[in-house]
């Protein structure tokens, strides 16, 4: 396990390098650049000298490969450069948005796992009964609802019926005011978590149904174990692998930012940062965000692999 971990950790470096190079090339390939997006059609009012001065100021006068190497150098020196738009260090911009993204990911994932597993187990036990159909139907609806629509609907209901909406545009830290913080993030987490719960419910239900049909469950039941013990200790643990795989992937995506929900609830997360950076061709910021999300994705995968081994001792990494 130890050597496996070391090997995996070493693999992170080439992964990050590859991802950054690919994204840098792609973003550069999109027509338009920071100066023309910033100035819009007024870019055409600049003289040659003015334009050159601006491109030089942002280092955009250099050839593609030199720009990339310059960026790489700044990363190796522990900095990620400065955002074109805000003039602030890229690292600072990312760190400022990290708490929101992390908290949203954790809350949505917990909600998804708890609700999803409970409903999945319930539906599996009540297989082909009315309540199974009902849970599956609700799950299907939850899965089909577009998140932006659900988010807007939630805000509309809150504002019209309760004359209240979560605080917008300004983040309240959990340590400063836990209640206001949970009020701010609860509804976006709910919006994200419901879809996740629906998916977890479907996966856990089918995995449980498969496990419940196996011989060792029959053995457990024949030993006279209570049904909840059979379900929780024997069946659920064995049905968790596909759920973990799925949740792991989702956590990776969520850490990359939930753009739509962030926009609807006006939360400054990583997702909006990256999308705005792409729109504005803020190359250092795009690179920084991509490096960060790739790193988070790789780490999540690694953690998922470790959890596999813990949940199912038959899985070994030698």
């Amino acid at each position: 396990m130890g050597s496996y971990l070391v090997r995996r950790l070493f693999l992170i470096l080439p992964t990050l390098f590859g991802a950054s190079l690919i994204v840098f090339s792609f973003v550069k390939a999109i027509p338009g650049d920071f100066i023309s997006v910033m100035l819009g059609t007024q870019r055409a009012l600049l003289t040659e000298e003015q334009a050159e001065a601006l491109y030089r100021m942002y280092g955009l006068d250099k050839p593609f490969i030199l720009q990339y190497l310059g960026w790489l150098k700044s990363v190796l020196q522990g900095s990620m450069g400065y955002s074109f738009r805000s003039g602030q260090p890229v690292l600072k911009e990312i760190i400022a948005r990290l708490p929101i993204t992390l908290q949203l990911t954790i809350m949505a994932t917990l909600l998804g796992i708890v609700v999803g597993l409970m409903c999945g187990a319930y539906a599996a036990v009540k297989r082909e009964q009315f309540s199974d159909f009902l849970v599956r139907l609700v799950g299907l609806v939850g899965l089909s609802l577009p998140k932006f629509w659900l988010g807007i609907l939630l805000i509309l209901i809150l504002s019209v019926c309760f004359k209240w909406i979560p605080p917008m545009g300004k983040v309240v830290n959990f340590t400063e005011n836990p209640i206001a913080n949970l009020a701010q993030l609860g509804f976006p987490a709910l919006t994200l978590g419901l879809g996740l719960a629906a998916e977890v419910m479907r996966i856990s239900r089918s995995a449980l149904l498969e496990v419940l049909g196996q011989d060792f469950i029959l053995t457990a039941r024949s030993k006279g174990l209570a049904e909840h013990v059979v379900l929780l200790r024997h069946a659920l643990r064995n049905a968790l692998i596909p759920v973990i795989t799925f949740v792991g992937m989702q956590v990776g995506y969520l850490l990359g930012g939930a753009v739509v929900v962030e926009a609807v609830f006006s939360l400054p997360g990583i997702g909006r940062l990256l999308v705005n950076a792409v729109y504005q061709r803020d190359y250092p910021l795009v690179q920084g965000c991509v490096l960060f999300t790739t790193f988070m994705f790789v780490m999540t995968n690694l953690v998922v692999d470790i959890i596999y081994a813990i949940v199912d001792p038959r899985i070994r990494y030698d």
Partner: protein
Amino acid sequence: MFLENTMKGLRGGGATHRKTRAVCSNLRLKGGGIMRWLVALISLSALVLVAIGGEVPEYGGKLILARTQDVVGLDPHTATAHASHRVFELVYNRLVGLDKDLLPIPELAQSWVISEDGKEYTFYLRQNVKFHNGANFTSADVKASIERILDEKTGSPVRSYFVEIQEIITPDPHIVVFKLKRPLASMLIYFSLPNASIISKDLVNADLNKPENVIGTGPFKLIEWVPDQYMRLKKNEAYFEEGKPYLDEIEIRIIPEESSIVAALRTGEVHFALIENPVTAITIRGIPGVQLSAIPSLRYHLVFINTSRGPLNDVRVRQAISLAIDRQTLIDVAAMGEGVVCGPIPPSNPYWAVPVTELFGYKRDVEQAKLLLKEAGYPNGFKVKLMAPIGEPATAIAEAQFIKAQLREIGIEVEVEPVEFGVYIDRWLKADLDMCMGVNAGAPDPDFYLYRYFHSTGPLQFVIGYWNNPRLDLLLDQGRQEVDLAKRRAIYAEAQKILAQEVPFIWLFSGYEYFAYVDSVKGFVPLSTGSIEYMKNVWLDP
């Protein structure tokens, strides 16, 4: 008549500004009698207002303003985004301001004199104005600011408006003289642009995109900016306008989704909002406790035509396209009825705009359009591409789809190309297009937007395929230099008629600038430029 007289008094040409100057100096120098009467009159009207239940401004309070876009750059001389301009209007001042009718009024300049030949502008500056860092404002700051704009290294797009300046002289700390190479009737208006904000001379070499270097003389000081979240501005206690601003603080919050802004207005979470999408505006109109101020915008929606590409190089084809589009129905269908049909100068600029009924192509005539296409050699129409930027403005795609449907009736097959804004700009700058949708920022003076597109030496000529017209060239040159207002108006009226006839653009409509606010917000004056500079007049009714 009254309007015309007011305009004559203040707008445009140099001769008229000499009158303004005379009025200003009367008040200032021989002040005694007139000033006493004025003060008495103002006090009396204040008393009357209180007596009849009028409202007296309250000091204090924090106003929360919501909008979808954060600033794109904080350098007042280079950032062109409207979102950035709204901040400049609060933090900086210009030499010249605009009143609610977009007429030039004193701002940092208390008064001005324009020489007989229109080539020398002398500004008498306010005394006792301080920058947010405590430094005194003098003519050296004005000189440094305009020189920074003129310096090519700054990369300022407004440099092109000031290139006629030959020399800037500061004979006194409170007098600045601009000597021009040739007369430029629109010069005063250029000094009122947010991009002509006056910065401290000590900061000309600083990175003005950094929030700590945002130091102006304006009514509010920038004290904190968290990108994509909020910006906090505190009252400038030393602001030069007596008694203003009323608010202690403004917090600008970024809420990217307009429907969420509506919800926040409904609950009172925000006091004030800048709205872009007409659909949102319509929603707001029905909400009790929320006011919507919709003022006809100077911005106008249009179709750019690349006249260097066939068949669009034939004027008959362009006329046919213009005749085939029913602009009022386009407003009703694509913009929910939120707009006014416009010609080359939008009706929100009433002094200069020629009514569309007097312009060619504003009455839909499909038969005539077909006839013109046939004469041009395209009896069966042709195929053409129409690029449309997604979301800029919100109605761009809907407008393009509508035009596609209307042009099909005369046999022209339009392919709508929806593109992301950055791609749109890139292609626009290369004139890589047949036709494309767009919104142009208008300006209080016609020279500003007509010369750069339609004069054969205009810097934006390339985008319409270098279309030009000798008669129009002559008119635009005359319009630049003519100081007599009535003559200038006649010049631009003829220019508009030529443009509508020749169709290098298809002018569609101008929408509204929307400002939504809860009932407790008082005193706001909307401007058709979308400016929020009158935030200094706003107060909160507790």
